[in-house]
């Protein structure tokens, strides 16, 4: 039966070519939008690797203040913040804090000469206390502490995937890595640190220590702090006032990481939602068209269907034939579409995992079959209802 249907459609391929092209294009659209959705959903479901609720970010702009007095003032501000009862922990960090939209990407390699170079590693400068602020769980090794004050090589904590890429088959602990011409000693491993945000692809990360003795302002100009759950806008205002009392003439910006995360999500999701709306419209359009064409075809094939009915075909068999025919037409379109879609994982377009494309293909194929079957349902019922005597008399 199925072979018969294929022969039937193949013989009428010239008449069906437009339908096949339309299904092919619809598949491509669904595949592309599906890949995008699967990609972002996959990223969203990967854990961030840190805790961001109850974390606040304080941005300080010293304006025209000379370089030398910036860090001492910053330390005074931090001491004052630490003394507040609602504050759990306070730490300095480089500007690319989670969800800030500011990112860093550098090459990291083994040793100073740089073997096994890994590109676009997210680099962060952090103080010891940031572990408590961001609730960073360690996988192996240790976090920065007082012992590192005496270290001649700056210590670093790296994400597990970076360790595995740099030192395949062995532990990265204690090894020397190179970044921008600086040597760093790996003292600990974390699972991951996705500061780029929920919907961005997970990148390897390297966290480097800023000791309390460091006096370079640009290294870690941002304060991150963890507050107790009862903290509110009143605390924010109090902080603002007390910081301005110490740092006269500076400008202060306080935001919560949750707010920054929500803003970032809105920014990324708005175009995706627009795309999904457009895609939905295209699919509805195709469905309506398919429905119309099928309906028209049934009107024209009344005689043929009448003959089949007169020869003893059941109403169910007629229905099945109509649905089967359109599914075969869809199969031809899908075969073409899959040929195109298969190029994406084969050529490694956009460096996205092949699994993402695979899932998107499956989803798109399922959607197209469902759509064509649904569109054929009513016309097929119509065809099954044709009375042989009436249809044949029309001839």
């Amino acid at each position: 039966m199925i072979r018969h249907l294929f022969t039937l459609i193949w013989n009428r391929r010239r008449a069906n070519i437009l339908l096949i092209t339309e299904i092919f294009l619809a598949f491509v659209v669904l595949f592309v939008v599906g890949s995008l959705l699967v990609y972002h959903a996959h990223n969203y479901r990967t854990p961030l690797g840190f805790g961001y609720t109850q974390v606040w970010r304080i941005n300080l702009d010293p304006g025209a203040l000379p370089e030398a007095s910036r860090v001492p003032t910053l330390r005074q501000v931090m001491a004052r913040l630490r003394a507040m009862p609602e504050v759990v922990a306070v730490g300095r960090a480089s500007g690319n804090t989670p969800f800030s939209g500011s990112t860093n990407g550098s090459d990291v390699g083994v040793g100073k000469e740089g073997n096994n170079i890994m590109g676009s590693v997210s680099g962060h400068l952090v103080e010891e206390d940031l572990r408590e602020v961001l609730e960073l769980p360690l996988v192996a090794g240790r976090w920065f502490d007082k012992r590192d004050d005496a270290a001649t090589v700056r210590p670093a904590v790296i994400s597990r995937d970076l360790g595995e890429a740099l030192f395949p088959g062995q532990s990265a602990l204690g090894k020397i890595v190179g970044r921008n011409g600086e040597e760093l000693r790996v003292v600990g491993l974390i699972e991951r640190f996705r500061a780029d945000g929920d919907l961005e692809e997970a990148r390897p990360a390297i966290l480097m220590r800023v000791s309390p003795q460091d006096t370079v302002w640009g290294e870690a100009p941002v304060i991150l702090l963890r507050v107790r759950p009862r903290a509110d806008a009143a605390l924010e205002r109090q902080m603002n006032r007390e910081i301005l009392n110490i740092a006269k003439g500076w400008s202060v910006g306080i935001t919560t990481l949750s707010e920054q995360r929500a803003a970032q999500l809105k920014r990324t999701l708005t175009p995706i939602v627009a795309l999904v709306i457009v895609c939905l419209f295209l699919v509805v359009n195709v469905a309506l068209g398919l429905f119309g064409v099928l309906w028209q075809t049934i009107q024209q094939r009344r005689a043929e269907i009448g003959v089949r009915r007169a020869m003893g075909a059941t109403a169910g068999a007629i229905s099945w034939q109509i649905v089967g025919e359109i599914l075969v037409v869809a199969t031809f379109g899908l075969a073409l579409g899959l040929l195109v879609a298969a190029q994406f994982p084969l050529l490694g377009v956009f460096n996205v995992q092949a699994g993402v494309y695979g899932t998107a293909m499956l989803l798109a194929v399922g959607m197209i079959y469902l759509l064509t079957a649904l569109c054929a349902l009513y016309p097929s019922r119509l065809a099954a209802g044709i009375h042989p005597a009436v249809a044949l008399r029309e001839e």
Partner: protein
Amino acid sequence: MLLSYLKIAWKVLLRRKFFTFISLFGISFTLMILLVVYAMYDHTVGPHTPEKRVDRLLFTSTISIWSPNTSNISSPSYSFLERYIRPLRTPEKVSISTGRGSVVTYVGNTKLKLDQKYTDAEFWQVLDFEFIEGRPYSLAEVAAAARVLVINESTARNCFGTARGVLGRAFVTDDNMHYRVVGVVRDVPAARTYTYAEVWMPITTSTEDIHNAEYMGSCMAIMLARRPEDVPAIQREFAQAVARAPLPTNVYKWVKEVRLYAGTLLATVVREELDEYGPNDGVARFQQLGAGLALLFMLLPALNLVNINISRILDRSSEIGVRKAFGATGGALIGQFLVENVFLTLLGGLLGLALAAGALHLLNFSGLIAYTQFGINGRVFGVALTAILFFGLLSGVYPAYKMSRLNPVKALKGDQNAL
């Protein structure tokens, strides 16, 4: 002749209402989406207040400290622009301002956080803001770091309860600085990234370090050309000025080149959106991408229309058979069908235009982007008309050709394989 074709078209439309509905749905929604996208594009980079003379304006907003392996990207500093860009001779005027910041003020006990921008006095000469009342701050006021400011209409309403008669009133920031309102301008949409703010203040009153030698900062420059033809000359002089700046090797030991480019509004926006900070601004890539996507997007509804149109012809095969049997030429039939199709497309186009106006209205009200006033103007209408005609022809030509090739004998017999 044309009139009778149109009459036939109208009758045909009424006969198969379902097909008519499908066609109109496809045409009007496709057009609506194209129009909404174009209106957004035009709203962001087209000539609108305050960048009315968009063909004479050049922007620079990102500096890149570059070497083949590493690059740091940021806004340029005030001192860099002041030293190397301000002295350019080819532009009529150069304005330096900060990127978007924010300022906090209290109205009674409510906290108002406003988008703010520090600018020089040239800013108001380079751009064409619509002043409701008052005036911009002058060169002398900027030089003297006078605490004066210009606010937009909504801010005036939020702070003082009225948009008129607020000149001379005091505006107190949260660090207790007293500013005096000298001008009120009409709201600028937030999509105009480089000029938008709610509050504009003289750059000399900011804490921005003017004497700092660091290249990275938080500023941008806008240049006004005397004539649109001067733009390439300005870009050449600009490039020379940037090349003259010494490499900041004291801070970035690895630096090989300082990259800063002057581009049109479109080029500058595209640069930021596509993260293109090299010599190529990416406008060509953006345009190819846009045209390709629009074509792909239109292809699917067009194919759908072709399919529907062929079904319609089959439906009318006996009519066509009769006309052919009485001697109608293929050309006449093609002409008739194209007229019918363009007529249908125009109907759908009108519907689409109305839908687009509604959608834009909704977007304006949703507050997705602050102070947006998306609308359909002459340019957008022109694009709509072109798109409609393109669409009508695209979906009409193939069915019309098929129609003209219909075999009259088979068609008259009602043979479904007549095509």
